[in-house]
């Protein structure tokens, strides 16, 4: 029995690593393929794609596709727009949605149960169903900017940001997490004289590292991959994000090398964001001892 179980342990470990390895390979190879292909001329790219050379930097390697991509489209503008819109939305969303979750869980007010149910009901609405009404609405909203009051939000950054700051899913994530925080911590802070704002800032937020990271990732993905909405609300190139920018590479003649170069470029912010969050996430767990 003991022998078998010892063997089993080794075997189980080996299987686990094999499975994890396989998953890693499945996830990493498309990225490697993308980057390698972006370095090759189209003809070689197509030849290589049938064999293992697709994953290796061999043959006629150059950065020509990148130069070409920058000539074909305002790549830097697209990346800048996406990073700006995504970054601002993620930050505001964490702030607003966590505050909403805080109010739902810790503060006692009339109607919070009903409101929370309504909020959760919005989770089942696909964005496509409200896209048109929302477009009609934002087209007529006032905005106070450098030119005074203007009507209609189209062709701007805020039209891509404001509608996505608060959403049911993010609030729900915070609500669930806050419910599991020990209520006596909040009560202790109240007895010690802390206001709701102070409790939010000094007690709840410092203990929310894991959920802030989770909510940030989910929001980041949604925002960075926005396509339909920015396509509807921006006609000017200057406000368009990366996913809309991808169109430029499928007009007229499709150059796959350039597509791969563009995709490689727009992946950089995603990787940077993940690495940053991973660090922050681990730091928050280490400092609070609260596990998510």
């Amino acid at each position, binding site marked *: 029995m003991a022998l078998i179980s010892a063997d089993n342990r080794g075997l189980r470990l080996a299987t686990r690593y094999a499975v994890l390895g396989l998953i890693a390979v499945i996830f990493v190879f498309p990225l490697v393929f993308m980057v390698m292909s972006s370095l090759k001329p189209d003809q070689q790219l197509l030849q290589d794609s049938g064999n293992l050379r697709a994953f290796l930097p061999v043959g006629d390697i150059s950065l020509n596709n990148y130069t070409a991509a920058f000539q074909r489209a305002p790549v830097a503008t697209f990346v800048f727009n996406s990073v700006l819109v995504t970054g601002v939305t993620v930050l505001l969303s964490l702030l607003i949605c966590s505050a909403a979750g805080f109010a739902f869980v810790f503060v006692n007010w009339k109607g919070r149960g009903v409101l929370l149910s309504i909020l959760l009901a919005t989770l089942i609405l696909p964005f496509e169903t409200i896209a048109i009404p929302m477009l009609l609405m934002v087209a007529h909203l006032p905005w106070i900017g450098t030119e005074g009051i203007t009507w209609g939000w189209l062709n701007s950054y805020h039209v891509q940001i404001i509608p996505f700051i608060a959403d049911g899913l993010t609030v729900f994530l915070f609500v669930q997490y806050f419910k599991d925080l020990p209520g006596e911590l909040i009560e202790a802070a*109240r007895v010690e004289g802390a206001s709701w704002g102070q409790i939010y800032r000094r007690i709840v937020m410092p203990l929310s590292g894991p959920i802030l990271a989770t909510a940030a990732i989910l929001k980041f993905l949604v925002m960075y991959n926005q396509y339909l909405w920015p396509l509807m609300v921006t006609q000017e190139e200057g406000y368009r994000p990366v996913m809309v920018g991808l169109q430029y590479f499928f007009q007229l003649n499709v150059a796959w090398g350039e597509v791969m170069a563009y995709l490689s470029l727009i992946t950089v912010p995603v990787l940077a964001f993940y690495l940053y969050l991973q660090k922050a996430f681990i730091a928050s767990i280490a400092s609070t*001892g609260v596990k998510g």
Partner: protein
Amino acid sequence: MARISLKDVKKSYGNAHVIKGVDIEVEDGEFCVFVGPSGCGKSTLLRMIAGLEDITSGQMTIGETVVNELPPAQRGVAMVFQSYAIFPHMTVRENVAFGLTIAGASKAEKDAKVAEAARILQMEHLLDRRPSQLSGGQRQRVAIGRAIVRKPQVFLFDEPLSNLDAALRMDMRMEIGKLHNQLGATMIYVTHDQVEAMTLADKIVVLKDGKVMQIGAPMELYHNPANLFVAGFLGAPSMNFIDVTVQAVNGNKALVSNAALDPVEVSAARGPFTVGEKAILGLRPQYVQVAEGAGRLHGTVALTERLGAETVVEVTLKDGKPLIAALSQDRVFPLGAAVDLDFDPATAHLFRPEV
């Protein structure tokens, strides 16, 4: 100053009536203990005093102020929770200084007050640790430190020692007693441990099902319990209850007996009793002795527990009911031996059957 007064205070959650009309007066500087079985509403009552639960009806005052509608921060109270509720992301120092930080105290003031609290609680060496690096007893000290540093007029403790082991519990119990003497503040302390209640309290409030059973000094409750519940709840081992029949009533005395008990005349202060009526005779195990000759109670030895200085004997009375005697010397009894027991009638309590 910090006198606390509850007048016909009630609390219900929907249809569940948890506190059913409670009148309690806690004098300034008094150590008041709420005891009672689990679920009787001790924590709820304490949390209502803290302002963490609102009051369904009645009036509550702290000092001269009616606090019914006041938020916790404005009541001048500090609370120590059963789970300690120390902020895990702050050091001990930051935890203890939390209330001062919120109040906007200067760094010098915080340092001085934290140092003083740490000295009183002997935890100077812990100040820069994180809560995850502390033992249960040390966490408890931090929680108490956080409470005393603001010098509140009223301290509220909700079973602060129940997560500690027996030895540490005794240490901390004594320290809380000393702390009360040092600070002179009003303290309300919730526990279901009657030893804590007896040793710490100036005044004990015994609660059951959201109602006050009796309020009084520990020895008053011990020697003169108002009803069966209080009599059975305080004292260890708990009081023996013997079903008896009233044979005669003579002024404020009643003569009672049963199959295992020879007629005995005891005080009938909790009356009125009428002849032929059933009643319950309460005898503290400590006041039951083994009779050298013939005694009033007759039975056989069922179990002996020798504790060294004390011997606890369980006797099966002639009518089949058990009775516990706690003898203050080390004695051996053969199992099944016939034994006669006796007691001073002045130490016996006669109760009407229902509370």
